[in-house]
């Protein structure tokens, strides 16, 4: 039985359809990549799966629970690293980790042990008592990831986890995530714009654009279906090579501007 099962999921924002009748399954223990150009609907889908937003229609089961009926049960089954910042800038690195561990009901010895282990792993243990507003963007990003890995959930959502990180850190972090997947059977659902990253780690890939899933399969299958020899080419052949903002209507254009300006 799949650990995530999505059927005919649709999300509308007023007249605009961000997610358009998508269906897919993610098997237990899989590393599943969700690829798509900017504005394709990846984050929106993740927000619905993680109970932060209500779908317009469609049904979802995550670890055999329905987010609409049993949000708290679903929340017990997953962990997430968000695309946008979600740490508290007025707390220290350690306090952010501690806050997370307590919210997830982790027992103290395990919590403390893992906090030390993960902060060391992302190179922040020396800075654990610094308040985050003195951290660089990359340091905050590393903290977000470390925090997401603190409790070991059944499903881990990673929304562009490695954006803004140097290649060394990226590889290092992916090794950790793959080990978590291998040794503890944690199912990974992630998005990324780095195609080689997806090709390397994902066992299943779904390509989404304009809210619709265009194709799903292994990297091998996608290349074969599009008659290309790299995932990047397969991706471009599926989604076209036009830049997204050009296609967007003027309202979307303004909305995107607005979002760029209002986001820190």
């Amino acid at each position, binding site marked *: 039985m799949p650990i995530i099962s999505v059927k005919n999921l649709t999300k509308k924002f007023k007249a605009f359809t961000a997610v358009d009748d998508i269906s897919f399954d993610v098997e237990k223990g899989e590393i599943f990549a969700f690829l798509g150009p900017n504005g394709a609907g990846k984050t929106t889908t993740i*927000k619905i799966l*993680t*109970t*932060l*937003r*209500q779908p317009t229609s469609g049904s979802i089961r995550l670890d055999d629970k329905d987010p609409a009926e049993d949000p*708290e049960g679903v*929340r*017990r089954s*997953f962990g*997430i690293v*968000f695309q*946008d*910042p*979600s*740490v*508290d*800038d*007025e*707390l220290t690195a350690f*306090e952010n980790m*501690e*806050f*997370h561990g*307590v*919210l*997830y*009901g982790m027992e103290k010895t395990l919590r403390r042990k893992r906090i030390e282990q993960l902060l060391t792993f992302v190179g922040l243990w020396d800075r654990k008592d610094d*308040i985050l507003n003195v951290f660089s963007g990359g340091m905050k990003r590393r903290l977000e990831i470390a925090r997401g890995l603190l409790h070991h959930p059944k499903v881990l959502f990673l929304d562009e986890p490695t954006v803004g990180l140097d290649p060394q850190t990226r590889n290092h972090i992916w090794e950790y995530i793959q080990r978590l997947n291998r040794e503890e059977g944690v199912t990974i659902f992630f998005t990324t714009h780095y195609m080689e990253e997806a090709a390397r780690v994902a066992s299943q890939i779904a390509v989404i654009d304009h809210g619709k899933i265009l194709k799903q399969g292994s990297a091998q299958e996608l290349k074969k279906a599009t008659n290309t020899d790299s995932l990047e080419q397969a991706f471009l052949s599926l989604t076209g090579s036009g830049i997204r903002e050009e296609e967007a209507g003027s309202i979307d254009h303004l909305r995107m501007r607005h979002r760029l300006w*209002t986001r*820190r």
Partner: protein
Amino acid sequence: MSTIYILWLRQLKRFVRSRSRMIGSLGQPLLFLVALGFGFGPVFQKAGQGNYVQFLAPGIVAMTVLFTSIFSGIEIIWDRQFGFLKETLVAPVSRLNIMIGRTLGGATVAVLQGCIVFLITLIAGFRPMDWTLLPAALGFMILIALLFTALGTAIASVLDDFHGFQLIMNFVVMPLFFLSGALFPLDDLPRILSVITRLNPLSYGVDGLRGTLVSGAHFGLGLDLGILAAITAFLLILGSYLFSKIQI
């Protein structure tokens, strides 16, 4: 339990760490105390109402608690804007517990702030009538703080950006304060004002504080306590409900 505690602790740490916010929120009560307390003192005295600082001090303490607690509640808007709210909302913790933790945290901060201002009023010459009633006054401060933190949370749950902030300031916080009897006695008011002040929950908070600190409660301490407790319970439930409906 531990989740409520950690949410509470977070609010407290944020409060203790931001000295500028703390000092900033002390400026206003101080200004009111000095400008109104000493400015209107002579007129008040001539009207046969006694010492104005003595009358005003409980009102200023109530004002401090009001401002701090509403803003603690409204802090959710910041948490939403800066993203931290998502972290709390995906955690396997009931919305009610999150609401309780936040409200207790915000209320604690507001009560601390109220105590600091109370000490300042002592420096300005205020003298409580009966020191043994101080715990009762503290009780009223706690009720005011809980009530308005819950109100702030409820309001912030339905707003999704900063733009509503000025609106709340002008149409909620200021009227609550000015139409509460914090600044003037509630006896012999014009009919409309008398009705409005009766509908304002802060009036009962101010009255409770004044009744315990100076004596001479307008509504009576029992009524003050009953109304504050009822409204606080209602707002906590409403706030939790609205909070549970937040979408990000």
